């Protein structure tokens, strides 16, 4: 899924609160919008000043064109992201004004792909993590041959959506899925909406109550949720894609900053001298001793007692969507 990456100015068409601490940005940026796929993301430049310094990654929450049209329409130049205010950058983003221009880089990474031979999809999103699943639901729906205009779906929908969150105000995306004629299942930890409990409980219940031979899972949300989803996928032996978040600098595979620990058959080939070996030959250190905690705790001597072999993948380029079985969950 090799894509062209563009750096472009985008105009803010609409900036809207969509939840207690969540917002939606609708941007006009034909260069990037025309290439965007569900699960891919952009890096957004917060400020023209040098602080905050880094761009911030956000997934597409809506992707145009939904169909494979020949001619670009006005709509096709538009993309959307949803963001939750969690820190300094996202706080500053709330001040962005409609009409303003911002710099974005994208589309980045690999999006979701249709799991081979699976007719049913369960999409499970926690909090703001539901955002990238909206365009994926839309694409799946079309991919599965359903007409966009057809209404009145029965419960046996080919796409099931599960939305979880702490409380009612943290449940996002319900309307968007309803517009796609999908009625999401909802769970909240405090029981203020839908079924009380975790989204993953709902997932297990769904899997238990239906034949799941042909199901694929697609998940996005907090790490503990994703780890749990991965575990459930293993248990039910289902293909499962997860969209992972990692701290990023470049967003395009150049800095190696967004490391994600993944299984690697090959990884025994990657060797590194043990940190305390061959002392007389060793010249380097950082400016102080006693800090060999990070790197040296990895074992580089092939060691069968310590499965699995691993390497670090770049979330921005090899992900952010991974097959859940690839990931080493810790």
């Amino acid at each position, binding site marked *: 899924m090799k894509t062209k990456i563009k750096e472009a100015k985008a105009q803010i068409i609409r900036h809207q609160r969509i939840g207690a601490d969540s917002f939606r940005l609708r941007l006009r940026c034909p260069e990037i919008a025309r290439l965007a796929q569900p699960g891919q993301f952009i890096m957004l430049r917060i400020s023209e000043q040098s602080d905050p310094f880094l761009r911030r990654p956000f997934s597409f929450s809506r992707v145009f064109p939904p169909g494979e049209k020949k001619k670009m329409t006005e709509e096709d130049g538009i993309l959307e992201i949803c963001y939750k205010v969690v820190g300094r950058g996202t706080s500053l983003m709330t001040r962005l004004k409609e009409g303003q221009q911002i710099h974005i880089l994208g589309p980045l990474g690999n999006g979701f792909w249709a799991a081979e031979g699976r007719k049913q999809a369960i999409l499970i999103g926690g909090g703001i993590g539901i955002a990238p699943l909206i365009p994926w639901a839309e694409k799946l729906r079309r991919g599965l041959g359903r007409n966009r205009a057809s209404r009145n779906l029965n419960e046996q929908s080919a796409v099931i959506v599960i939305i979880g969150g702490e409380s009612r105000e943290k449940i996002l995306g319900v309307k968007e899925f309803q517009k796609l004629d999908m009625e999401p299942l909802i769970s909240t930890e405090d029981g203020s909406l839908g079924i009380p409990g975790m989204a993953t409980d709902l997932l297990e219940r769904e899997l238990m109550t239906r034949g799941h031979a042909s199901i694929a899972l697609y998940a996005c949300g907090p790490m503990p949720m994703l780890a749990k989803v991965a575990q459930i996928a293993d248990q039910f032996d289902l293909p499962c894609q997860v969209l992972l978040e990692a701290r990023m600098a470049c967003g395009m595979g150049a*800095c190696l900053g967004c*490391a994600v620990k993944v299984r690697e058959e090959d990884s025994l080939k990657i060797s590194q001298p043990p940190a305390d070996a061959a002392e007389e030959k*060793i*010249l380097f250190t950082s400016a102080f001793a006693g800090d060999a905690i990070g790197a040296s705790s990895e074992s580089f001597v092939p060691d069968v007692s310590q499965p699995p072999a691993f390497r670090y993948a770049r979330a921005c380029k090899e992900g952010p969507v991974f097959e859940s079985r690839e990931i080493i969950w810790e």
Partner: protein
Amino acid sequence: MKSADHPKEGPSLAVELGALKLRNPVIAASGTFGYGEEYASLIPLRSLGGIVTKGLSLEPRRGNPPPRLAETPSGMLNAIGLENVGLEKFILEKWPFLRKASCPVIVNIFGNTIEEYAELARRLADVEGIAGLEVNISCPNLKAGGAIFASEPRTVHKVVAKIRRATSSFLMVKLSPNVSDISEIAQAAEAGGADAVSLINTLIGMAIDLKKRTPLLGNITGGLSGPAIKPVGLRMVWQVAQTVHIPIVGMGGIVTAEDALEYLIAGATAVQVGSAHFIDPRAGLKIIDGIQRYLQANNFPDVASLVGSLKIKKDTGQPT
């Protein structure tokens, strides 16, 4: 782009780092520009003065456990841990693309021992088309034992001399800013046979996650880069310019043409652009254009005549 493609139109941007000739003085810094291919779809690589590749070791390295990045005021910390594909794979898989970049490509190298440095230099000398080596003696993420290397003039001299004997390639030594006296380190590199010095690598820094009360970086400490460190880099370049006779390549926090011009005026013959690529992949190109415009506006015939042009007044005291 125009200026970079047609240097004839205005003041010449060409510079010479000893025997190595660059179209312009703006080089992409090691570790921030991957192996070139990542940025190739966004900018014409041939417009750059040069590219320095990600630090290369004999064997592949996995790097440090995540998180590897943290943002800091006007800067960032990284603790990549010198992850790289290793010499063999570099030559097989990365070099064919870089060779066609049609701009000088400098290979950044590091080893765990002096022998490894020499071995790398020797084996890269056989690879056709490499413009030169940048020797990283300063990565703060590399840890392997007792002595402090990058801050000891004697060991610096030793490793540089050994590499010098192993290769006739253009040899640039990259200095660590985490030292008491950068000048004596630069002098040691010069005496060891370096064709140029580049500085600064990152300052060692740290950040803490207040919610978890753990370090933000998997490696605890990391390297600070970005605008925050510009004053330190500029000071060190100026300082080294007073003491060595080989060309200096300046870096640290360069984001705009103005930043680059400060370094050139302080005494750098060329500059490297690092973290700026993360916030603007076109940073290098914009800097080239900006330098061109400054030269024009200030009637400099070429960039070389700007290098080291800092005026120091005997008494700079003024009422305001």
